[in-house]
């Protein structure tokens, strides 16, 4: 793919997100486009979080998927990352801001308070 073309499924979807400090903070679990029928679509938002998984599963497994991974509540098990936050696309998707500012890696932040109690953590 050259010029201004990119294979989004191959190069973006399911790729690792890394914040401005180099911290791994989730994956590109889905993408959202903006635009109307018959108009140009533009890539608008990255969805990241386990809550996205259920709607990518086969229809018959979505109910179980929602129970296991979350039902896609934005801000809780799904984070919307504006495409404008993407700095660079290489082997990872590099973001312009810190994970915390974007609401990413909440699980790690939550569990860090427990792990911090372990010796030499």
């Amino acid at each position, binding site marked *: 793919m050259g010029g201004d073309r990119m294979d989004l499924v191959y190069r973006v*979807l*399911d*790729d*690792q*997100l890394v914040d401005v400090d180099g*911290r*791994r*903070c*989730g*994956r590109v*679990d889905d993408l959202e486009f903006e635009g109307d029928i018959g108009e140009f679509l533009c890539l608008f938002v990255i969805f*990241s979080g*386990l809550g996205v*998984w259920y709607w*990518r*599963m*086969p229809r018959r497994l979505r109910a179980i998927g929602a129970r296991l991974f979350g039902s896609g509540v934005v801000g809780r098990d799904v984070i919307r990352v504006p495409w404008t936050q993407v700095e660079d696309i290489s*082997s*990872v998707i590099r973001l312009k801001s810190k994970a915390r500012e974007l609401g990413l*890696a909440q*699980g*790690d932040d939550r*569990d*860090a308070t*427990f*792990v*911090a109690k*372990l010796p*030499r*953590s």
Partner: protein
Amino acid sequence: MKKVFQVALGIIAAIGGFVDIGELVFNTQAGAVYRYQLLWAVPVGVIGIVVFAEMTGRVATVSGRPVFDVVRMRMGLNVGLVTLVASLLINLITLAAEVGGAAIVLQLLFDVNVSTLILVAVIGLVLIVYFVPFGGIERIFGYLGCALLVYVAAAVHLKPDWHHVSQGLIPSWHSSALYAYFVVGVIGAALVPYEVYFYSSGAIEDRWTVRDLSLNRANAVLGFTLGGILSIALIVVAGEVFFAPKVQPGYLGTTALGAQHAYGEAGLLLALLGMLFAVGGAAVECAFSGAYTLAQFAGWEWGKYRRPREAPRFTLAWMIFFALAFVVVETGVDPVLLTEYAVILSVVALPLTYLPVLLIARDRTFMGERANGLLASTFGWLYFAILLVVSLAAIPLMLATDGGAG
């Protein structure tokens, strides 16, 4: 000179780290039942793991993507999830088998209640993993696992018929389900996926660069190959000691008996020490492998080189794996039986992780000039075909032979 020394140390660690409970169980059984006739299956498995490890190491170094990053990216969410769940389950079974094996070896050394020793083994491993740096873990278990080289010495000492041994290295076939089962088992015991997940994640943990590729290729090729010699030695010793009297090995103690028969108490102690650290090291690799797998698939921060609070879900993941393995082993399930299931199921799931790595390794978009050349491609696809055949045959053979009972 420093590089040569580094390579030598890396190879030693790889030799000691190659053998796990799967090799100890399957290779001893193979030698006892078929003497040398299954020796040829060892190089098939070793070449397979060299091919797989070299590709994953190269992919990780050049593209920055360890195995489960590649699986997620190349297979997508749904197929990737199936692969993830299968890998985690198999990892857990394998980890339980290794922990159980370590406890049995401790019991053979100290004659203490095995339930207590399972707890001791798990706590000991968790403490070592938590407090010792990554490189130190590799060295402790790798170097001390080299005590298993007593089997290489024993194989020579027992004076086998070398003509028959060399004939065993030539592929042969028996129209027997049991023979086919052992072929699958011996290949599967060498081609354990958790070693490859650990290896590729280790490439990123150790911050390999493209300049390190030759060095680390040497470690993989030489280390696994020399480790394969250990596997061959296990078969030869079992063939010499157990084949004639028709002993059917069903315990780790039986494997140790082979070294004792050659060298007495010294042989026994070296064998047990080597087993303890080989199996212990394998348990560590397994636990990390599970945590790497989960973290990489989900996109969490991961790495032993990170402080625990910087990769908290990764840290909790490997601790939980050890806890779950403890629970499994404490139910009293036989670790040797668990090992057989782990090896066979690993072989079944192997193509699911092998294929995405192969596809990325040959993709110039990610690999540039380091993409698979003609030799790597040829071996890569050849082994994919072999793995497919072996993985499809594994479960039917396990059922047909009642898990190798005959």
